[in-house]
């Protein structure tokens, strides 16, 4: 069954949009009804394809935001100069069709049997696949300890904020706000650097598994920082999102 979930469908299929949820201004979760969905693993993604009436096509990929036993959902951040994200976050509505294929990915995935401790490091919308992992952890009853280090520009940009504030036992969340902080903010207020990683990351002797997701430059800084701290490269999994335009 796990094997079938990994392979997914090779062909495109049309899913129905069930619900849209605005997470923050510019970030929307789209809940889908996918016929014959084979199931998915936490961390996998979907390929989405849009086709205009004259046949023009654009394809992008989005991480699945939900746990394997929940309806398939993706969370999309609207990019100003984007071609697909403005459509998904502003035009698409319940009842519409959305062409997709998936689930895709066998590298950036976490299953409860992988255990922990887990270090999840998110830059902006990089939090999406990590949130799927957190939900899966909770819903599966895993007691793997987790630390999430989540970098956002402002508090208003934090996706899934309420959910993360109510994080389950064994989950610690550290937010760093890089552009603007609310009055009285006592948390970190800068981009993730070696020092911040050193404060939040599990000590190397704990044998943690790290998942790092976000824009390319963020991922590379963080991954290099973790390796510097002594994390074996094979224990640092990375997923780079396009910084602009995609």
């Amino acid at each position, binding site marked *: 069954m796990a094997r079938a979930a990994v392979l997914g469908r*090779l062909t495109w299929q049309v899913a129905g949009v069930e619900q849209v949820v605005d997470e923050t201004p510019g970030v929307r979760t789209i809940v889908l009804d996918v016929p014959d969905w084979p199931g998915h693993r936490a961390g996998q993604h979907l390929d989405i394809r849009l086709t205009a009436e004259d046949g023009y096509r654009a394809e992008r*990929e989005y991480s699945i935001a939900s746990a394997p036993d929940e309806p398939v959902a993706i969370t999309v951040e609207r990019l100003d100069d984007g071609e697909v994200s403005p459509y998904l976050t502003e035009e698409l509505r319940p009842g519409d069709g959305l062409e997709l294929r*998936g689930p895709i990915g066998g590298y950036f995935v976490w299953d409860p049997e992988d255990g922990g401790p887990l270090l999840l490091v998110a830059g902006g919308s990089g939090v999406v696949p990590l949130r799927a992992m957190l939900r899966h952890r909770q819903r599966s009853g895993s007691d793997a300890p987790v630390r999430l280090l989540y970098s956002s520009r402002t508090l208003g940009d934090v996706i899934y904020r309420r959910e993360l504030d109510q994080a389950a036992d064994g989950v610690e969340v550290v937010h760093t706000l890089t552009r603007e902080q609310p009055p009285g903010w006592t948390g970190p207020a800068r981009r993730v650097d070696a020092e911040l990683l050193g404060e939040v990351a599990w000590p190397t002797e704990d044998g943690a598994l790290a998942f790092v997701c976000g824009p390319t430059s963020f991922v590379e800084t963080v991954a290099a920082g973790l390796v510097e701290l002594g994390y074996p490269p094979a224990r640092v999994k990375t997923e*780079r999102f396009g910084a602009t335009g995609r």
Partner: protein
Amino acid sequence: MHALDGNAIGGLLLEVFGAEMTTATGTCAHCGAAAQVAELVVYLEAPGTVVRCRSCESVLIVIVDVRGTKCVDLRGAATLQ
């Protein structure tokens, strides 16, 4: 930055090879470095998809969509399994 990683072509590789390839290991024909496809450097914004070695930047894989058919060139990969 325009570079992504092999995660970004998981769907394309699934389509081309009929299998999940992001955990496959590719070795660079130029420098011999071995890496999982998910960790290779991927350029998507080009006339084709170009996959490069993270160590030496040599090209491992190029995929061009020629009139609807995906043409895959693996000459830069010594092995891919």
